[in-house]
């Protein structure tokens, strides 16, 4: 039997044949993550040239710590978004996790590591609960995680009666304040989380199946993938990482303070994911982009601080960045994205 040759939309390849450089450029433009990475570089150079303190070691260390906080949240959030869901609870849960860890540690006298493990376990349980509600009872992810967010904020205040918990074990400070060489430990944790998430998503069957569930749940189900288990696992990952962030926050402050507990972080996390090219419809987005998205947002917010921009305008600037990112992504998708929604 003769093998017919079918030409699948090869126009791109043949049209951009003139030079390898042109086709590489084209490939870069067509890659969703390239724009964000480039924007990171541009932002860093621009801020560095206008404010000398910007690239000082001290400031870079500050940025590393900030990044660890909402960057890790963004990675967790992205898992949920990849399945087409959303997790609004991460900020509130991070806050509660910090309080819980302090409460376990100080009020109940648990040793530091045990308190941390217990906190992470509670958070994982919360994620499992989210997944179960979404899968079994078809509760919209938006709603169920908003419930958790609200409860978390209230619980954090009621556990502590509004007063910060002091006298934490050293382990919390060790995690947050120490350095490996010039690099703060939290920044290393962020890198570790990114690498682990990348490996899980790109190199394991479970990860590829998460993409499949988000991309076409019906196809995944028909192919025999346990779709519910995959979805639940993403909520567990998101909540557990939120717990980790909560622990890093109290370590950095030295107290478990319910009034500063992670509010608004969820929106920054979602913004970082979207800027990094994660589709809110699910099934699309890579860790490189998510990390770059988080880094870009940190570069910009810290940069505006270094330039002494009025604090009120900083939020406006963040909104503009998000708007530009979404716009650029849509335009790119129109030209290169095939059937991308």
């Amino acid at each position, binding site marked *: 039997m003769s093998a017919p040759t079918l030409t699948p939309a090869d126009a791109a390849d043949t049209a951009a044949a003139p030079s390898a450089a042109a086709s590489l450029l084209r490939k870069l433009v067509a890659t969703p993550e390239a724009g964000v990475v480039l924007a990171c570089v541009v932002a860093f150079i621009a801020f560095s040239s206008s404010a000398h303190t910007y690239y000082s070691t001290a400031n870079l260390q500050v940025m590393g710590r900030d990044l660890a906080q909402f960057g890790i949240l963004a990675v967790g959030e992205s898992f949920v978004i990849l399945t087409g869901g959303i997790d609004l609870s991460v900020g509130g849960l991070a806050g509660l996790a910090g309080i819980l860890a302090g409460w376990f540690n100080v009020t109940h006298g648990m040793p530091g590591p045990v308190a941390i493990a217990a906190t992470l376990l509670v958070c994982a349980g919360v994620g499992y609960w989210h997944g179960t509600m979404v899968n079994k009872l078809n509760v919209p992810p938006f709603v169920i995680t908003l419930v958790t967010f609200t409860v978390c904020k209230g619980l954090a205040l009621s556990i502590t009666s509004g007063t910060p918990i002091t006298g934490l074990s050293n382990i919390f400070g060790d995690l947050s304040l120490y350095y490996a060489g010039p690099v703060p430990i939290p920044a290393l944790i962020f890198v570790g989380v990114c690498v682990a998430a990348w490996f899980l998503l790109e190199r394991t069957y479970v990860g*590829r199946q998460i993409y499949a569930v988000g991309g076409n749940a019906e196809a995944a189900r028909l192919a025999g993938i346990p779709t519910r288990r995959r979805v639940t696992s993403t909520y567990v990952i998101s909540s557990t990482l939120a717990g980790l962030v909560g622990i890093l926050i109290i370590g950095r402050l030295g107290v478990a303070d319910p009034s500063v507990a992670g509010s608004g972080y969820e929106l920054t996390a979602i913004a970082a994911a979207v800027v990094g090219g994660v589709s809110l419809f699910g099934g699309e987005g890579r860790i490189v982009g998510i990390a770059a998205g988080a880094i870009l947002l940190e570069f910009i917010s810290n940069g505006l601080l270094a330039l002494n921009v009025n604090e009120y305008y900083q939020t406006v600037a963040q909104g503009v960045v998000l708007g530009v990112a979404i716009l650029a992504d849509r335009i790119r998708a129109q030209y290169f994205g095939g059937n991308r929604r």
Partner: protein
Amino acid sequence: MTVEPTLERSVTPLGRAVIARLRGVHKTYGPVRVLDLPELDLYAGQVVGVVGENGAGKSTLMGTLAGSVRRDAGEIEIDGHQLAPGSTAESARLGVALVSQEFPLVGQLSVAENLLLGRRPADSRRRVVVDRGAQRRAAEAMLAAIGLDPASIPVRRAVRELPVPARQLIEIAKGWGRDPRLLILDEPTSSLGPVEARLVLDLARRAAGQDKAVLFIGHRLDEVRAIADRIIVLRNGRLVADLAPEEASEDRLIREMVGNEVAHSTPKTAPTGTPTLLEISGLTADGLGPVDLTVREGEILGVAGLMGSGRSRLIHTIAGAQPATGGSMRLGGRPYAPKNPGQGTDAGIAMIPEDRKQQSLVLFAPIRDNVTISILRRISRRGILGPRRVRSAATAITDNVKVRMQSVDQPIGSLSGGNQQRAIFGRAFAAGPRLLLLDEPTRGVDVGAKAEIYELIDRAAESGMAVVAASSELEELLWICHRIAVMHRGRVAAVLERADATKESIMTAAATGQAVQTRNELNGNPT
């Protein structure tokens, strides 16, 4: 996957083993029995062609075997193993592979990942981590197994970047790669060019050569006749003919598909002397055209055609719900080029779409709000709507079309399908349209209620509206229409006057794209 039978295979007079044995399988949706098969055996080494009109039960039969449709009763054995109803996993385990037309593929993932979705490549030694090399090799082998040059479909590419024919071939490779005992192909060639179609037909023959059973659902009769060892015809969910290829002439098949019932109405006489309302010339749109048609006031024009022939597209393009890419339309003598359905409504067009639940109604909202949404401006006073006005307008509308209900305040979802559909007609009439567009006007409506819908359509025409009705049910078209346009691959293949229209003449034009003389004309016998 090969499942070793635990029971002894029964052997037929042909000397072939039975692969699938169906006994007393039936399935009912609401009042309609869509599948009723007392007995059907599929043998190893045979390609069985399945033909039938739209709604004859072909898809239900496939779904029942593949587990995506849960049968109401009956037993299915695959290789002697009982098949539990309604489980795709169970069907796959027993070796049933369905290649569907809907391509359940994940667009964002690569071809290789789609081909191996939900399983590991056989030679991968890693359990958790993806062995990409093995995955790629397995995918290329799967493509090669169906006779494709692996270079023609790059397995690393995301599926959504590939054209539809390539996706169809991937879907086929996916089914083939499971090494099924029973391979079900659902109109596999409808999206393919001649070369790839040839490949798929060869593949079906090859499957039979390897002692698999093949169920080949075909839309083109010549293709089915060329490939099948046996052709079964379904009509209204029943098996009405089981033919050897040499018995199955195209004429015979069409006759079996449409049945021998005479049309139960005397043909209506078309209104004469009324002015032309809609004039379509050279109209094109995505998957449609060029189309030329005219409709007069008071006339009911039917639109027939097979699935995907462009029936709905034509209706949608006239309504402005799908952009026209060329040609022109005139409505009541004026140029008419709607950019959106709103402009269509403004020009005096009302459309009743195919899917009541998705496209027409807010099911949980009260009847009063559902029937008044197109006339809110008219019944409001300076933009303000009083509840009493809405209720009285809604009562007038529902009385006009005789919706049976307790009150206009109950949710419309609590009404029967027929009553919902009448309410939608009432809503369309309330806007006072000149042209009424219908897409499957009686879908999901039981038989008694259908007649009442037909009365409403007649009433609309008698009041001077022009009606264009697309339907997959030939009886329905023959019952309601003055003229019938038959679509084939986006074009109008024939326009039949009611006196010339029979199920056979419509089916022939729809299947072949050519208007042929009807049997009656050949016999010199006008209906």
